[in-house]
């Protein structure tokens, strides 16, 4: 049996299950994108190229052993932090300072931090006694809060949330005390009015329109209302691919990016949504499984955190599309149109694969 399969396929470096899941989600994403872009093949082509680049990157990263990653982690984190600070000072972009123009490509340092932060926290905790004590927890908290704060001021609430939670998950998986978890939750709940003060006006409007979308149905509330109409009118089985009127007639805002799930839900219905969520759940579950079989503390914490961060993407995006959360700019992983997030997601999955292929049992 083994002879029929070529050696490199049998090589343990690639996690075929995960790769299959990624490809299924990506292909679904391209199909939805074709519909969501108003049947513009150019969009699909561009996105396919990005995904291709991302997949190559993923495989390349999967070849790097975790301990090498760990050694490089502080450098990566420091580099990211400097870029982030630079962006803060001299960034370009639509009124927000997210992008760093490197001449050839425009680059979002905050995207890098989505990986660098959990890596850093994991690397920080790796040599330490776990579960971490108060002091280590506090230090790890500082590692994740510094970039989060800068990203929040950019302002990019969605990425800040993702960065903070990826760091937070690392701590959670490291076994941080429930007492600390509960206190942090209580304190942040108490501080949320303070957050309101730090928010930009557009962010406040998003929250207002979330709480009361019908008060301004053509303005701030438009996104949420139209998205809900799209989802709701999809029904159990959906209107069919390319037949979603809300999508094709451009009623859904940002239909090919943040709200692409509304297009999907309209055209494929509840059944489609459940299937897609199941794919994501499988991906997350696979990630967590890889974590449990990881070789060392660093790999374990990092893998678990990456898997759970993936969940945050899916949860926040689908909750936003269905009107459960205010509009936050978090894309639907591997489906929303856009290069940076796809590449960083695939890089994360590459790390997972590397951890998988350097798991305990091998040697």
């Amino acid at each position, binding site marked *: 049996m083994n002879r029929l399969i070529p050696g490199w396929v049998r090589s343990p470096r690639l996690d075929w299950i995960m790769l299959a899941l990624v490809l299924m989600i990506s292909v679904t994403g391209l199909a939805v994108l074709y519909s969501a872009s108003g049947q513009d093949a150019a969009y699909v082509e561009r996105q396919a190229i990005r995904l291709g680049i991302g997949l190559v990157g993923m495989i390349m990263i999967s070849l790097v052993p975790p301990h090498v990653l760990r050694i490089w982690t502080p450098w990566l984190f420091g580099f990211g932090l400097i870029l982030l600070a630079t962006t803060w000072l001299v960034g370009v972009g639509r009124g927000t300072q997210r992008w760093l123009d490197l001449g050839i490509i425009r680059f979002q340092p905050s995207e890098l931090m989505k990986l660098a932060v959990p890596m850093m926290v994991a690397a920080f905790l790796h040599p330490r006694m776990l579960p971490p004590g108060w002091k280590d927890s506090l230090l790890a908290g500082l590692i994740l809060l510094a970039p989060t704060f800068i990203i929040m001021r950019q302002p990019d609430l969605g990425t800040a949330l993702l960065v903070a939670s990826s760091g937070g998950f690392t701590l959670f998986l490291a076994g941080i005390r429930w007492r600390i978890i509960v206190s942090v939750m209580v304190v942040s709940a108490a501080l949320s009015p303070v957050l309101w003060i730090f928010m930009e006006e557009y962010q406040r409007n998003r929250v207002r329109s979330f709480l009361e979308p019908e008060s301004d149905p053509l303005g701030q509330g438009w996104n949420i209302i139209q998205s809900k109409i799209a989802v709701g009118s999809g029904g159990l089985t959906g209107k069919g691919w390319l037949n979603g009127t809300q999508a094709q007639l451009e009623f859904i805002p940002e239909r090919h990016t943040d709200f692409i799930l509304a297009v999907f839900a309209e055209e494929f219905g509840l059944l489609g*949504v459940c299937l897609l969520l199941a794919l994501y759940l499988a991906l997350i579950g696979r990630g967590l499984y890889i974590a449990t079989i990881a070789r060392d503390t660093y790999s374990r914490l990092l893998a*678990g955190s990456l898997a759970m961060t993936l969940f945050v993407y899916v949860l926040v995006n689908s909750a936003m599309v269905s009107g459960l959360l205010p509009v936050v700019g978090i894309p639907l992983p591997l489906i929303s149109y856009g290069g940076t997030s796809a590449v960083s997601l695939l890089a994360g999955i590459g790390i997972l694969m590397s951890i998988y292929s350097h798991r305990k049992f091998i040697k």
Partner: protein
Amino acid sequence: MFRSNTPRPIKDAHDEQRLFASRARTGFIIIVLLFLGLVARYFYLQVSHHEDFTTRSESNRVQVQPVTPNRGLIYDRRGRLLAENRPAFRLEIIPEEAGSIEETLQTLREVIVFSEEEEERFWKTRNRYRDFESIPLKFNLDESEVARFAVNRHRFSGIKVVPYLARSYPYADMLAHVLGYVGRLDAGDLARVDERNYRGTTHIGKIGAERFYESQLHGTSGIERVETNARGRVLRVLERQDPVPGVDLVLSLDVAVQQAAWDMLGDRAGSIVALDPTDGSVIAMVSKPGYDPNLFVHGISNADYQAILDSPNQPLFNRALAGGYEPGSTLKPFIGLAGLELGVIGIQDTVFSTGEFRLEGQVRPFHDWKDGGHGWADIRLALEESVNTYFYKLALGLGIDRIHFYLDQFGFGKPTGIDLPGEGSGLLPSRDWKRGRYNEPWYPGETVISGIGQGFNVVTPLQLANALATLVNGGQRKAPRLAYAIKQPGDVQAERVSAPLVFQVPVNNNQAWLAVLDGLRRVVNGARGTARDVALNADYVMAGKTGTSQVFGLAEDEKYEESEVAEHLRHHALFIAFAPYENPKIVVAVVVDHGGSGTRDAAPIARAVLDAWLSQELTR
């Protein structure tokens, strides 16, 4: 920092692993629960409230748009087109494609001239349109403008010349008062029509026949159910219900007669109404000066409107329909008939005119127009020579109550009921009216001057013509009709409109009616008739009555210029006529404002109108 040199406890890999597994399990359970929560949310939206959202998605997508019907055309009775829908061109701008509108307008100015007002209106309407909709800038481009734009088209994007149907009135001011005009639909207009039927309509009849027959001329709006995208751009038509065009309206006017009357008035202000007594149709209705109704179709400019308001003699005022004139001697035939019919005087009875008539116990005399009087006069002579004394005495014999009763039957003092909006009612005085108006009793002297149509009496030219039609018609009083026939869309044959009979004046003594008509014949044909020269060389026998109207106030809203009062105090010249005498086919009432003499100024116009009509009618 990471390779800490401080001694640290030895990590227990196994415990760590267990702790991690427990945390990972907890995390995964929470994740699964939250996913289930999400599924519940999508179930709530996609299954529980599916119907609801489906309805909202449909109403998002499908819009109902009106399809405007073509407005009916208006013809005269000989088939001449009076109001047409002329293909015209307007210049429109699509902001989305034009880029900077300011710059575009700047460049456009080099090619096509448009006024500041047009630009101002454009900016005003700008906000009501969406970016991809085209907004009219200038209406009614002339040929050279269209050509100039065509040559320069490559210089502009987002600007186009669009064909449309514009209401046009080829006879301009000559028919303005009858046809009226259509103008831009406003909030006030919407209040009096079915708004649903006017959703796509831009113009509506503002006055005149255009307004009176608005509902028929307009037609019924169709609808189009269209699919639109979020910005409202129409993507495709799902269903269409065609509009029903408006009816074509054939007016009883004869432009040839109208033209004759119009030309005869020359530069003078005045009005002429000609009716066909056999069917109550309106042959001509002139009010001069007129104005160009075409100016109003696309919204008149302030300058043009001010020019109309500033020009003398109130061009916007329809004298024929709403002008109030003292009837003067033109009322005499009706007073005379009242006397004969109510038995106050006989046909042969005569009255002696000395030139002056005094009420008992009063010093101030009432005069005849002729010094020394006319001598003995019966009804025929009294009409032929317009003998005031005859009618002074007759009026006294009748008393104001009977005068009011009898003249009321001829439609004096109330609207005739013509199919035009804005008709005046004139005034037929009575005891009650005077008490109500002035809180004073009626004085005998007022009865005396009522006998010659002076004092409180006010008539409109239309009323006068219609009263005369009633007289020559054996008492049949109709509501005059401007509409002659109505052609339904798709029909070949137009359906005739008949004038409704309003009242039948009782005829007790046929001879009395004939005597009055004979008196009118002698006005024109008698040796001493007041208009004896007017019918020279006529192919038919004409009858009529002259009248002079003391200036009574043309209209309540007229402003008298102090310096012009003298001119304005000149009498209005009146003449009423009918022909042929034996078999009347036309009656006409002519008023020349401040004309002076009914004989000299008004009668020749009446003759021209009769000629114009009868030359066609008699040869048919």
